[in-house]
């Protein structure tokens, strides 16, 4: 039913009709009419962040932990430019997000008006699509189309720029069911012939591996269930990218751990030595492949991806399958069963024997210390003390992020929020706020480094205002740890600007915001301190002073293949002379 209303009212109505319950935003001149409508309704909750970048990352955290699109509302000019990092982050990690920006009135566009920026121009390369709406009658349909684009195919961020006069003017509201659908309809079903080729290859493969990514999680619970069933039924080992952690459970018997630059030894060598690689919703990122020319040289490669441009982008695939992960796995699993559920049992047994030999290296071993807290140890204890909770983990970017990926176990999808593609320092804290808003009763922990955390520390105000019990677990080494590591290994130990000078007293900082601060520097106090953090019902800033010069291993130096890994000091001796030409 067509109804007349103002553009501002239309925005709120369209969001409600799209099932939106939370908006992350920050008001300003060019969105005041929309904020006025938000004030006069109950259905949509608005979370006031302290910086627009925080709104975008909070929306990402909300989206990644729920599978629903995150919604951001900000003003024109600086409001819009401040969300650009968050939008780019969402594009790189395929996070569905709808960003609404105010714009100066249509008749002032191009006049360098106050708080004017070419928002659609600036965000064109970092959105999946964007729109400048110049006519109130087009507004509702555009919002509905935006949700369709953001959530279908490979998900991503979209932006709608709404001039202030369009918000004030009246027009006809169109409900989602009556809105034109547009022609954007990505392919969902995979090519049956190629799927058959893959299934045939799976029946005879001696050394197969599932290489899974964020696409499995984006595809939804059905995709996760099918992947698990497929891995259990075939007995094929499973490794995952950073983005895909949780799709296959860390406790599952086929689990190899994460692969890639800081991935596990057994996972990377399995990738290097396999004869059939089944890429499910991953994209052969450069942190994964290492040197392309030497990447998994003797394998047939299948690639299941909903984005046609991901196929053959960096690595040639023998079985390119464009389609939704759940649909393709469903078809492949059904066909594999129909053909008699065959695998090469003899080959697989040898393969697992080989993998177990690699595992015996124990690449994640580290030397504990009685004097200083090793960051790995802090995460081992955090895992031990929180694994039974209804738990969501966010991270910032750097060493702590890789350690969290290595030492924490993820049993379910949508429980792990991290900035993978863009590598945005400052992502984790606001993301944890978005997650906690979506899951008020869950334990939400942001594993952080002190340098990353400071990048969006203003969001302490948001956490305090909404009484969000987010736990900020800061592994404080007073260094930009990953930069320092690279400088040590690759730049002659010249530590150019990679230390954190003039750090705040994090306990006092927490208290200044009305939150709880905990300082822990003695390994003997660690468990009690973590328990104290968990027991506190409110935001906690946990300042964990860790070993300052710890390096993150294993590590594949850039430009090297998977079988040239650097292992940590603890395992170096064992690694020498083992298969795979380990560099030490």
């Amino acid at each position, binding site marked *: 039913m067509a109804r007349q209303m103002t553009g501002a009212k239309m925005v709120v109505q369209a969001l409600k009709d799209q099932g939106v319950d939370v908006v992350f935003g920050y008001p300003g001149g060019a969105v005041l009419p929309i904020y006025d409508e938000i004030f006069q309704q109950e259905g949509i909750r608005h979370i006031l962040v302290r910086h627009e970048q925080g709104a975008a990352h909070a929306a990402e955290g909300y989206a990644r932990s729920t599978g629903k699109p995150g919604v951001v509302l900000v003003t024109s000019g600086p409001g819009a430019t401040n969300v650009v990092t968050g939008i780019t982050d969402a594009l790189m990690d395929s996070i569905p997000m709808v960003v609404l920006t105010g714009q100066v009135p249509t008749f002032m566009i191009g006049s360098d008006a106050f708080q004017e920026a070419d928002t*659609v*121009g600036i965000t*064109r*390369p970092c959105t*999946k*699509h964007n729109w*400048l709406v110049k006519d109130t009658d087009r507004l509702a349909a555009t919002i509905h189309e935006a949700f369709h*684009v953001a959530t279908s*195919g*490979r998900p991503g961020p979209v932006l709608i720029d709404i001039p202030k006069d369009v918000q004030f003017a009246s027009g006809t509201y169109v409900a989602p069911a009556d809105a034109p659908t*547009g*022609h*954007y309809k*990505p392919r969902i079903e995979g090519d049956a012939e190629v799927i058959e080729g893959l299934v045939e290859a799976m029946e005879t493969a001696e050394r197969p591996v599932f290489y899974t990514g964020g696409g499995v999680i984006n595809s939804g619970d059905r995709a996760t269930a099918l992947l698990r069933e497929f891995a259990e039924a075939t007995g094929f080992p499973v490794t995952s990218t950073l983005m895909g952690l949780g799709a296959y459970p860390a406790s599952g018997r086929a689990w190899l751990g994460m692969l890639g630059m800081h991935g596990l030894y057994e996972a990377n060598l399995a990738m290097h030595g396999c004869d059939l690689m089944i890429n499910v919703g991953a994209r052969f990122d*450069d942190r994964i492949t*290492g*040197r*392309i*020319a030497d990447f998994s040289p003797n394998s047939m490669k299948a690639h299941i991806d909903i*984005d*046609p*441009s991901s*196929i*053959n*982008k*960096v690595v040639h695939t023998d079985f390119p399958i464009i389609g939704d992960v759940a649909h393709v796995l469903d078809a492949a699993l059904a066909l594999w069963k129909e053909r008699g559920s065959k695998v090469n049992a003899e080959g697989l047994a040898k393969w697992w024997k080989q993998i177990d030999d690699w595992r015996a290296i124990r690449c994640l071993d580290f030397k504990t210390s009685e004097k200083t807290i090793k960051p790995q140890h802090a995460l081992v204890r955090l895992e031990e003390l929180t694994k039974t909770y209804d738990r969501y983990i966010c991270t910032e970017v750097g060493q702590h992020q890789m350690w969290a990926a290595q030492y924490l176990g993820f049993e379910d999808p949508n429980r792990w929020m991290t900035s993978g593609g863009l590598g945005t320092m400052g992502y984790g804290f606001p993301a944890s706020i978005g997650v906690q808003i979506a899951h008020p009763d869950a334990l939400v922990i942001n594993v952080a480094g002190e340098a990353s955390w400071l990048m969006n520390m203003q969001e302490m105000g948001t956490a305090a205002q909404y009484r969000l019990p987010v736990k900020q677990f800061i592994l404080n080494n007073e260094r930009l740890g990953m930069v320092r590591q*690279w400088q*040590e*290994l*690759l*730049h*002659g*130990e010249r530590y150019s600007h990679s230390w954190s000078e003039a750090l705040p007293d994090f306990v006092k900082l927490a208290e200044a915001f009305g939150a709880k601060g905990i300082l822990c520097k003695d390994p003997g106090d660690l468990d009690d301190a973590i328990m104290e953090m968990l027991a506190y019902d409110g935001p906690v800033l946990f300042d964990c002073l860790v070993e300052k010069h710890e*390096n993150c291993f294993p590590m594949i*130096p*850039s*430009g090297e293949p998977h079988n040239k890994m*650097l292992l940590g*000091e603890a395992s170096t001796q064992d690694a020498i002379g083992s298969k795979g030409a380990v560099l030490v």
Partner: protein
Amino acid sequence: MAALKIRKGSSKHSAYDLRDPNAEVIETHTLAVVVDNEAGVLARVIGLFSGRGYNIESLTVAEIDQTGHRSRITVVTTGTPQVIEQIKAQLGRMVPVYEVHDLTVDGPSVERELALFKVAGAGDKRIEALRLAEIFRANVVDSTLGSFVFEITGTPEKIEAFAELMRPLGLQEVARTGVAALSRGSADPT
């Protein structure tokens, strides 16, 4: 752990593998892209090419269906076979894009470009310019006592050849439209 010994200037200093994996044959392809004629659509397509480091040799765009608001962009691009495939896939996944045709591989096609040449001269050079224009079936669309403007249609190679001949005869200005292209034969077999 001690620092790794790395030669100064080695690409191992970088966080990326700096070796070019695409040091192979470069091909030229003509792509026809049918898009929604919406604000900013050309900027979107051009931005894709510049943002991802693809080449544009020539580009034309105009509305081809007023009621359906469709425009056709004809772009001539160069790259390795892998890059050409990437360009098509990247174009194909854009929201306002309806169709992407690679006229270079889809079958025989015709390519035409229109160009205007201003040639100024006197005496023999002026007569020679007019004579060559006739051979190339170029039309005179403007004439003064000291100059001609020729209009010529043809493949880019033909226009290139004509330009070469006009240069010593007093070529002053050139305006080219870029390539428009269509596949040969009937798209619909009925």
